[in-house]
């Protein structure tokens, strides 16, 4: 950012025009009612001093904001529009959406499916309600804006962690207790697909898997490793692909709790022994989601390994780094090494030879750190920084270390709040 002071005539104009629809927004951005005048001098803006209190009376804050929550946040909240409430009274039927709830929150995939559920109700007619069925810990605070009419939260120790057997028994009981029109699951690796298949086998229903175009009558689903579109009558149980419909964003919903009468389950034959602790470097490279990869442009190997550790990244390497004996062969990325699928691949001092590029064809975001702005890796990268790797890695490590400090204290705070 340059520090030359520039005028923004439009902003000034809006600030002057109190009837402009954006006036409030602009006015609230200005800190303490101070405006930079045309000559660059600071001017007081009398209309801006103070704020409108909850009861509509203008107040002047003599504590300069120290007594309240930070200004930016509050004004953003004030800006939020109240969406119209969609109410369903004593529904005739339900559409059950068994959400993945990764980390206790609705995923994007879950939200798409909630959107689809409403679409099905609109097409089918009748007084249907969309139910989010969830297990275990729930942290989601925005069921209402995601299109959830009812929340069926099935709680109990038996359902915690990995408990597909208990969960499917509960779902079968839901089926018995409520009028369920459809069961919708995300066709995902987060458990949705597994649970859906179990339920389908239990209820003797033939589900549609990898469904992506669904209406009340017809479902189009993928088959034969996604090479086939199968069109059929929309079945009771559906496992849906991502983006099967648009998420709800223009209505608010009641999200009233529902309950299941009987939550007793038989003893599990599958016992969860918990997640295994994984060292990023023990993750098979092909599966790693974040790789820090070293090439011929690395001169300080200790620093590189430290950086990988600080960033929590899996280490990769170009063939030259392997040939020169700095990295084991199993770390080589490329034509004769591993083909990786990482979401982020940071290539440090790698020129981007074609054989190396073959290995990162499926990577989402490539970041290049290189001294040569003309090399092929820079052409491939979403973000390239031109400079000495050692210097940049050092700075990056500093940033990450700071970030960890603050997020640790954040967590500590959260924990104490919870306590």
């Amino acid at each position, binding site marked *: 950012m340059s520090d030359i002071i520039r005028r923004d005539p439009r902003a000034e104009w809006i600030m002057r025009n109190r009837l402009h629809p954006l006036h409030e927004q602009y006015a609230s951005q200005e800190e303490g009612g101070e405006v930079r005048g045309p000559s660059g001098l600071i001017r007081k803006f009398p209309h801006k001093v103070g704020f409108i209190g909850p009861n509509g009376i203008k107040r002047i804050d003599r504590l300069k904001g120290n007594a309240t929550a930070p200004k930016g946040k509050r004004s953003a909240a004030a800006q939020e529009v109240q969406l119209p409430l969609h109410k369903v009274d004593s529904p005739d039927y339900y559409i059950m959406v068994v959400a993945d709830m990764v980390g206790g929150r609705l995923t994007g995939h879950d939200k798409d499916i909630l959107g689809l559920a409403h679409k099905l109700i609109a097409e089918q007619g009748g007084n249907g309600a969309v139910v989010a069925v969830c297990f275990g810990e729930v942290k989601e605070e925005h069921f209402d804006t995601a299109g959830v009419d009812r929340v069926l939260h099935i709680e109990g120790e038996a359902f915690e962690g990995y408990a597909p057997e208990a969960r499917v028994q509960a779902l079968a009981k839901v089926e018995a207790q409520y009028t369920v029109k459809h069961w919708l699951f995300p066709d995902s690796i987060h458990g949705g697909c597994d649970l859906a298949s179990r339920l389908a086998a239990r209820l003797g229903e033939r589900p549609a898997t990898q469904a992506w175009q669904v209406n009340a009558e017809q479902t189009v689903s993928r088959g034969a490793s996604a090479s086939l579109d199968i069109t059929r009558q929309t079945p009771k149980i559906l496992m849906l692909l991502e983006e099967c419909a648009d998420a709800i964003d223009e209505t608010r919903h009641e999200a009233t709790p529902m309950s299941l009468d009987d939550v007793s389950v038989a003893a599990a034959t599958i016992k969860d022994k918990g997640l295994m602790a994984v060292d990023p470097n023990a993750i098979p490279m092909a599966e790693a989601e974040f790789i820090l990869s070293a090439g*011929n442009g690395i001169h300080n190997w200790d620093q590189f390994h430290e950086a990988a550790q600080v960033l929590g990244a899996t280490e990769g390497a170009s063939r*030259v780094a392997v*040939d020169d004996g700095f990295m084991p*062969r199993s770390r080589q990325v490329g*034509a*004769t090494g591993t083909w990786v699928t990482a979401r982020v691949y940071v290539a440090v001092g790698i*020129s981007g*030879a*074609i*054989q190396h590029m073959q290995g990162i064809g499926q990577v989402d975001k490539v970041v290049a750190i290189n001294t040569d702005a003309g090399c092929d890796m820079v052409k491939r990268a979403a973000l390239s920084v031109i400079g000495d790797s050692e210097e940049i890695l050092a700075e990056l490590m500093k940033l990450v270390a700071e970030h960890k400090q603050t997020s640790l204290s954040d967590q500590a705070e959260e924990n104490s709040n919870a306590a």
Partner: protein
Amino acid sequence: MVIDWLPSILIVVLLLLGVIGMLRRASLWRAGQPEKVNIIAGLMAMPGRYLKDLHHVVERDKYMSKTHVATGGGFVLSMVLVLVVHVFKVQQQIVAWALLGALLLMLVGAFFVFKRRLNPPERLSKGPWMRLPKSLITFAVTFIVLTLPAAGILPEGTGGIALIMVLSIGVIIGLGELLFGMGWGGPMKHAFAGALHLAFHRRPERFGGGRSTGLKPVDLTSAVIGVAKPSDFKWNQLLGFDACVQCGKCQAMCPAFAAGQPLNPKKLIQDMVVGLAGGTDANYAGSPYPGKEVGQAKGNPNEIITAGLVSQETLWSCTTCRACVEECPMMIEHVDAIVDMRRFLTMEKGETPNKGSEVLENIIATDNPGGYAPGSRTNWAADQNLPVMKDKKEVDVLFWVSDGAFDMRSQRILRAFVKLMKAANVDVAILGDEERDSGDVARRLGDDATFQSLAKRNLATLGQYKFNKIVTTDPHAYHCLRNEYADFDKDGALAGVEVLHHTTFLNQLVQSGALKLDAFKGGKVTYHDPCYLGRYNGEYEAPRDLLRSLGIEIAEMERSGFRSRCCGGGGGAPITDIPGERRIADMRMEDASATGAELVAVGCQQCTAMLEGVVEPRPQVKDISEILVDQLIEEVH
């Protein structure tokens, strides 16, 4: 009296023992698989092959060739005459003089052998081979003295019993090496096995200036596919191994050995000898496989080779560059043996290392090693306006595109070549998506089943169309089409068709004036001979002619032409990627840099990929067609 007869008796005894040894040796070869040879014709052709073909190779080392003629020729002649003079006691002085002459010739030769052995180069084996010149000299000197009386130079009975005893010891030492050792596995075994190897060579086409480089098809219905044990080799392959003189010329040329990969072709052949005779390699006195200790290997004719005799990495290190075969004075076929053993590893054990199995699986499922959609094979040519055979049916030149079609770098070569053909108004078409991988990689990786299936399907496609020439930019496909498809071409799809490499074809176009080219103005240029173009197909001149036609004076590398060093890209070696101390491509690039060249001209997409894989700074690498296209004078119509 008896004492007088002692030398003669010793000669006969050692001769008999030698013959017994040879028969036993022959029985070892017969443990191999049957292979039809023409025995009479072979034996008749043998002296010629020895004098012409073998010496053509030995001739590259003038010193050794003269030495060998003197020693070997002298020995054969004197041995015959020794029998005449000392066993059959023919009393003519003239014969004795002739014997003396032959022995002197041999003595001179043996002296030079001795000299070479004073400070032997690293490639030569030591051990028993170090005593050979001494045995030769002993033989010559002993028989010279023994013959002196017969020649009338010394009176009969000179020296009395003492001399006879000394000479008898000389006879034992000399003939022990030369006759007994020949049959019982001493260094002289090479003479007897070598002679028979020349007579019964598995590739008789190689003699008389011919070339035979295509691999032999494997029988897919046999109980074990490929070579698992020494006895699975053909009998004449075993015989060939026995002919090895451990001269190490192969080792000196082997790129894998130089790169420190665990392969030494000489040791490999010697291990095959250990395998066919049974025993260990403890007596081997040459360079080891880099990084492997000598003395650990053991085997016998009926034991799996890779279970103790030769490690799998050794077999997978080979780039099938044929430098060893080209250099071997005994015309031993290393590559055949290596691929035979690979066939067992791939087709019976399923142990192709590294990316090998993935590549093979891709070839099987998609007809290309990269596993790309077969329907995208012609994508590169979307803007090239190239007719496909399916529409044309008949054409003068069929352009075999090869799997370079899927690789962005190789596509530049393809486009350059297409542009040149268009400029010369060539009537050309491609097979388009009907083309399949030639099968080269599959075959070198030992998967002959897949190669055969590809060859048959490609031939079936080719058989539907009419064309006069097939031209390809890929020397590997060129080799398959030209030398290996014939074994499967039952319907004559390629009969009468000229198979050409693009450099040959372009050279024809330039010579006939169909292509007009400007002089090249860049810096120094060197040329790298691709193995599959040069050694496999003998094309050394066309690419050079083309460069010369641009006014380029080629700065030749130390190793060029038939001695060109491999880029490391053949035989599936980049796929199996056996670690060494260095990269073959790096060494080749050093060769190129040493000429001071700024540009390396090549005639192969694989060489281009390998050499461009060398870390910068390095000379640029371009296919000849790319160089030509830059100098093309386009006529504006």
